[in-house]
């Protein structure tokens, strides 16, 4: 059925919400990581249990990622009054007990998880809850494959509102007033982008969604696309109306098959109900969306490269100006926004710019989704108001460092960002503060590192990534980053000198200053920020030829301590015959022969091998 007016949509919604089933929903988190953790088996167990006679009481709903990746498979019981109970690390065996316990009881052996978020659009933050979900408002609580679920949460009402009651200029203005900034990393004001494109003469224009999430360690876009695809479609239609585009393209990573499938379904449903296609909401506004697939190139997250990729070319960035808003896809005005940016749009239109600005900081209103990963207890997605401190995120939401090790640093902004240390844990983070402490927002990956991570090696890892993903067009990125990588490799292998450290910094600064695109300009950031914050670690590598974290193999020394009982197991397993000693007496390692493979340490049952 087609919806042709805002009233019809609201009617439809109230009809959907008005039907009470009296059942408690079992929300089953079945995003990529939920499935990888065994969510499908849990879902099967739930369905089997319902078939056994609980179908009058419960209803199973497949939802996207709840953000609780660390305790997947996750399920949430939720009744119509909104009361909820979340269980993590769920096994199929626990299901009968959990369902028997329901919302009020306790299921023995099952792990209950506290909800750490609230929905600013619907409720007040009462108990100092750290997460505020705007972009993730539906992710993890609706069935992404059912448009009705989206409509229940006011879906497509923002689109109806702009088409029926707002002039296109007013839409861009509202987004500008809300000070929504690009969540892909650079933080450019979204409303301004829209205004630039809107100011171009009428004609073919394009609205593009950048879903080429490539930051290693960032997966919020995937979560939104898998969990709430309609929010992106609706926002693209709103933006298209604002700039005068009739064609939308979602450029998505081919590595996200589930997201692709859900988007395809969502587009089909939206067309059927008249939210996409010709004459949307009974107006003269036409807009449709197609998917284009990436093919494995991180640099295609850069907008000019992304456009070239859609055009079927090598994803090489070109110099701006001209900006895509003036001359983009097929040389037509084009707006490129990222998934998370779009996910905020409908809420802003519904609730207004002033409401949006009440969340976050004055320069960066709203929230930011972060993907917490690395050496942290609660790996997952969190959406926090801008201005939240890293301490709250890492130790509050993240549950602290894995195995109670010491916190060393957190890398934000992926390969473009930098490391942040203890001294900045209490900085309220937004676009500007992150920059001022030598990192950047980036797409929101947050990788936590502990004392077992060598920061030189981490910098080298990021440079390896950049070298791999550089398009190779400009000199500083093509050759300069390679040279940085080689210098870092030298340092990790004990071949670096103090001059190497100096040159590392000088070359890093020149690359920042000269590279063509954002990838190249930010690629030295991990080097510079580790040099700034962990210089003593670099010095240990070059002066003492020592890796304090014990990671750089070439700098390690394996020795045998007094725990040795002379069993000979190490000597038997040593691939180079470097270990010798009499039976039942302490063995020794010939350092000249040792290749530092670590096999002896793995095999020793008496903790007699030291690695330093």
């Amino acid at each position: 059925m087609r919806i042709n007016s805002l009233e019809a949509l609201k009617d439809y919604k109230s009809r959907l919400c008005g039907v009470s089933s009296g059942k408690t929903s079992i929300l089953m988190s079945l995003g990529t990581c939920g499935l990888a953790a065994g969510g499908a088996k849990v879902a099967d167990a739930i369905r089997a249990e319902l078939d056994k006679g609980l179908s009058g009481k419960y209803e199973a709903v497949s939802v996207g990622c709840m953000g609780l990746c660390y305790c997947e498979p996750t399920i949430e019981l939720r009744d119509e009054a909104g009361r909820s109970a979340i269980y993590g690390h769920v096994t199929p065996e626990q299901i009968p007990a959990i369902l028997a316990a329901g919302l009020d009881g306790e299921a023995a052996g099952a792990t209950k998880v506290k909800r750490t978020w609230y929905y600013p659009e619907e409720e007040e933050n009462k108990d100092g809850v750290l997460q505020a979900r705007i972009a993730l408002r539906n992710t993890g609580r609706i069935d992404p494959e059912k448009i009705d679920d989206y409509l229940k949460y006011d879906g497509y009402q923002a689109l109806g509102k702009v088409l029926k009651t707002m002039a296109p200029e007013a839409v861009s203005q509202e987004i500008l007033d809300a000070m929504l900034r690009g969540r892909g990393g650079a933080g450019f004001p979204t409303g301004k982008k829209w205004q630039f494109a809107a100011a171009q003469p009428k004609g073919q224009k394009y609205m593009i969604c950048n879903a080429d999430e490539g930051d290693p360690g960032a997966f919020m876009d995937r979560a939104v696309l898998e969990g709430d695809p309609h929010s992106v479609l609706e926002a693209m239609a709103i933006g298209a109306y604002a700039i005068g585009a009739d064609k939308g393209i979602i450029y998505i990573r081919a590595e996200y098959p589930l997201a692709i499938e859900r988007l395809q379904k969502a587009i089909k449903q939206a067309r059927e109900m008249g939210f996409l296609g010709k004459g949307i909401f009974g107006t003269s506004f036409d807009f449709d969306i197609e998917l284009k697939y990436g093919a494995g190139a991180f640099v295609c997250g850069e907008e000019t490269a992304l456009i070239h990729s859609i055009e079927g070319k090598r994803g090489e960035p070109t110099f701006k100006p001209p900006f895509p808003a003036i001359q983009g896809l097929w040389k037509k005005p084009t707006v490129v926004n990222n998934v998370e940016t779009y996910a905020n749009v409908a809420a802003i239109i519904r609730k207004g710019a002033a409401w949006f600005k009440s969340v976050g900081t004055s320069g960066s209103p709203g929230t930011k989704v972060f993907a917490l990963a690395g050496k942290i207890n609660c790996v997952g997605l969190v959406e926090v108001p801008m201005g939240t401190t890293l301490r709250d995120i890492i130790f509050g939401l993240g549950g602290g460092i894995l195995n109670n090790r010491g916190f060393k640093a957190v890398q934000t902004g992926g390969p473009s960002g930098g490391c942040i240390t203890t001294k900045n844990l209490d900085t309220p983070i937004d676009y500007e503060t992150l920059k001022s402490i030598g990192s950047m927002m980036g797409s929101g990956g947050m990788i936590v590192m502990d004392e077992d991570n060598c920061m030189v090696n981490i910098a080298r890892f990021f440079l390896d990534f950049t070298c791999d993903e550089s398009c190779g067009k400009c000199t500083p990125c093509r050759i300069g980053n390679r040279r940085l990588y080689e210098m870092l490799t030298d340092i990790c292998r004990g071949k670096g000198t103090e001059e190497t450290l100096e040159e590392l910094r000088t070359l890093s600064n020149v690359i920042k200053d000269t590279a063509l695109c954002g990838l190249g300009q930010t690629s030295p950031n991990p080097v510079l920020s580790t040099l700034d914050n962990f210089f003593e670690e670099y010095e240990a590598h070059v002066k003492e030829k020592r890796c304090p974290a014990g990671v750089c193999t070439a700098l390690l020394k394996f020795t045998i301590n007094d725990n040795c009982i002379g069993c000979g197991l190490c000597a038997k397993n040593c691939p180079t015959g470097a270990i010798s000693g009499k039976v039942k007496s302490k063995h020794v390692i010939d350092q000249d022969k040792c290749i530092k493979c670590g096999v002896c340490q793995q095999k020793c049952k008496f903790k007699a091998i030291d690695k330093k």
Partner: protein
Amino acid sequence: MTCCCECSKEKALDKLMRLEPEKTSELTAFIDGLPLVAGDVEKNRGFLVETLHRAQGIFGYLPVEVQQVVSERLGLTRSEIYGVISFYSYFTDKPIGRYKINVCLGTACFVKGAAKIVDELKAKLGVDEGETTADQKFFLGALRCVGSCSLAPVVMVNNRVYGNVTPDMVDQILADCED
């Protein structure tokens, strides 16, 4: 087309048809279904990436003959097609093993020791990253973040995901790959 010096040049499509009739028909049917505009090279180029995706899906890789057919059908030069294939890491012009073992080298997996898994696999398979074993069974590759950071380090074998992998698990992972 035969030319007067009697060299016989077989057209790429004919050759491919002769070698792989079913796959070739599938590819040409796909391309015929694209809304190509005759003479509009710029717009038609926009279908290149999805055509290559499909072609690689059908053939498993993108041999020269496939590139030639795509070039002829889309009206693009062979050099630009190769330029695109060699740019994107998803595409390959060499046949790859039946079991594509991809170790995630995203940051989260890296900090949790993915490099050790790669080393173990290299040693066990006797191939380098990006290579296929001589028996065409295994391909060893690296991925940049599959977004399953909670399971780091992650190894993917075709579509199967192994989480929290340790070097000790490599033998079992390989043993799971039975034809």
